[in-house]
């Protein structure tokens, strides 16, 4: 499995504050990756580092076999939709497409025109008068018409209403199916991404808490409940992610690749939502733990 994005001990510091620290992750090719984490976890920082808008303070980042933004052709291989989908308010849609055509050698104007037609947008309309959903669609069109190998979207649906959000993700998935493109979507709500992602990275407290194929993650995490028991008494191949106890009963969210034999347990599958919340909660509780606790499942 080849990686389109690889970071090693990546860190970004603003003044005395670390926006991202000790971030080591890899993103495999041709996946639709959900980058999930609470606000302030470093998602935006990571994506901006990947596209070269920021430079790392520490560590390395490698994107499509090169340094981010090291040259124009490197920039051309990455599509980026920034948070709040910035566009030039006073320029019309057609001027934005013109910009794309002028500034990108691989620009697919047929695709861009078709997309604007399909969206039913008036080309002469200024970007400033578009709705949030329409502006996001315009930004997505600009990013896709570059014919990127890697598409990065920073909180693309955060400011959209549910209908616009659904439409946005739908058009995104239609294009992704037709092309061999790796997509990374960040969001603080896993629900936004659950339907479209096949790979998940949970970023919290500026570190990667969890990363892996959604399918594998769901097959290796279970919620077990039974008579009250201490977490230390569980088999060594069962890693406790979350635990809760009542007087008589214990419930654990565990990670294991082995079958669970103990007949005392009631075993239930977990949802992506459960997983993300458990790991984010975990990160908050053990924020200052050393790197070795980083959990990697592949």
């Amino acid at each position, binding site marked *: 499995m080849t990686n389109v994005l690889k970071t090693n001990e990546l860190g970004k510091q603003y003044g005395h504050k670390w926006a991202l620290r000790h971030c080591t992750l890899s993103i495999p090719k041709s996946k639709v990756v959900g980058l999930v984490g609470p606000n302030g976890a470093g998602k935006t920082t990571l994506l901006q580092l990947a596209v070269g808008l920021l430079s790392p303070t520490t560590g390395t980042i490698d994107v499509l076999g090169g340094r981010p933004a090291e040259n124009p052709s490197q920039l*051309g291989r990455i599509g980026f939709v920034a948070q709040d989908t*910035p566009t030039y308010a006073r320029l019309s849609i057609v001027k934005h497409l013109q*910009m794309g055509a002028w500034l990108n050698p691989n620009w697919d104007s047929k695709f861009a025109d078709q997309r604007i037609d399909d969206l039913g947008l008036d080309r002469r309309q200024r970007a400033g008068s578009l709705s949030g959903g329409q502006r996001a669609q315009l930004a997505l069109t600009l990013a896709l018409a570059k014919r990127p190998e890697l598409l990065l979207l920073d909180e693309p649906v955060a400011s959209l209403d549910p209908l616009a959000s659904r439409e946005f993700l739908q058009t995104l998935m239609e294009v992704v199916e037709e092309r061999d493109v790796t997509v990374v979507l960040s969001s603080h709500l896993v629900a936004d991404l659950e339907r479209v992602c096949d790979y998940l990275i949970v970023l919290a407290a500026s570190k990667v808490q969890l990363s892996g194929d959604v399918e594998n993650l769901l097959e290796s995490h279970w919620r077990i409940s039974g008579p009250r028991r201490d977490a230390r008494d569980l088999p060594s191949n069962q890693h406790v992610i979350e635990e809760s106890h009542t007087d008589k009963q214990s419930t654990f969210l565990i990670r294991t690749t082995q079958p669970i034999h103990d007949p005392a347990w009631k075993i239930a599958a977990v949802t992506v939502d459960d997983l993300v919340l458990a790991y984010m909660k975990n990160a908050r509780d053990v924020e200052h733990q050393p790197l070795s606790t980083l959990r990697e499942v592949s």
Partner: protein
Amino acid sequence: MIRFAWLQFRAQAAIAFGALAIIAIALAITGPHLVHVYDTMISTCKSQKDCGTAAAAFLHSNSTLRTWLGILVVVAPGIVGVFWGAPLVAREFETGTYRLVWTQSVSRTRWLAAKISVVGLFGILFAGLLSLMVTWWASPMDRVSMNTFANFDERDIVPIGYAAFAFMLGLGAGVLIRRAVPAMATTLVAFVAVRIAFINLVRPHFATALVISKHYSASFGPGRGTVFSYPMTLTSNVGSWVISSRTFNGAGNSVTNIACKLVSGIRVQPGSPRPSPAAIKARLRAAEAVFQKCIEQYRQVFTLQPASHYWSFQWYETVSFIAFALVLCAALIWWVRRRTW
């Protein structure tokens, strides 16, 4: 990238060059008339041998418009810096569009270079054309006033240098401050400060100043009527730029007032006989001689640049400001290349 820079700038350019066109039309209509008035004035005043009065009237009748046009030429480079230079990049930071444009397949250096070439060159063109138009329009009056250096900042080529510098200053402030309005304010303050500092500290030293020292003297009319002749103005160096004019006493110290008094000592006491007219005259002459002796110790020392230096000074100043602009430009490109946002 040049095309996109132009696409972003053309609305502003249209406004500026529209305004310039209106001014050009107004000047083109009134300008030839001024030349005509000037020619007739010169020919009539020469025959009447009184050109001073005619020139003063000619200057006075057009002074308001001439002053306002001069102010416009002085302000134009500031407008270029504050309204074109400062928001150029700051606005992209403010609205977040830098994240859009920096992720197209264009390096930041090229992006900045394109903005500088398009907007910077238009700024220079704007200030330069305005200056040349006003210079042409005002030339009859400038010839009459003969005060060559008085309008130095608002004529000929210096506004080109000012505009280039103001633009780069604005752009630099915008890149560093990243917010349009504070960058605009900073640009204005810095530009005015540099211009004033340059006028006072650098411009006087472009060429070795001419130092002219003139002794005071007094001339006296008949009877008690007294006429003082002070060398307050220079008739021999018309149109020169007087950088300083100071008064020195006999000991060579700089003074602010002249301590000479004309004391005749003629005082008629009540009851005593009136001195004879001859005696009064003699006393007066003696007092005048004392006064003359006193005042002749004083000198007025002028430091000046003669009118013949005007064009070399225009070039020195223009080249200096263009050099400032180029240094700023190089520093800015270096900064944008290595800056890790």
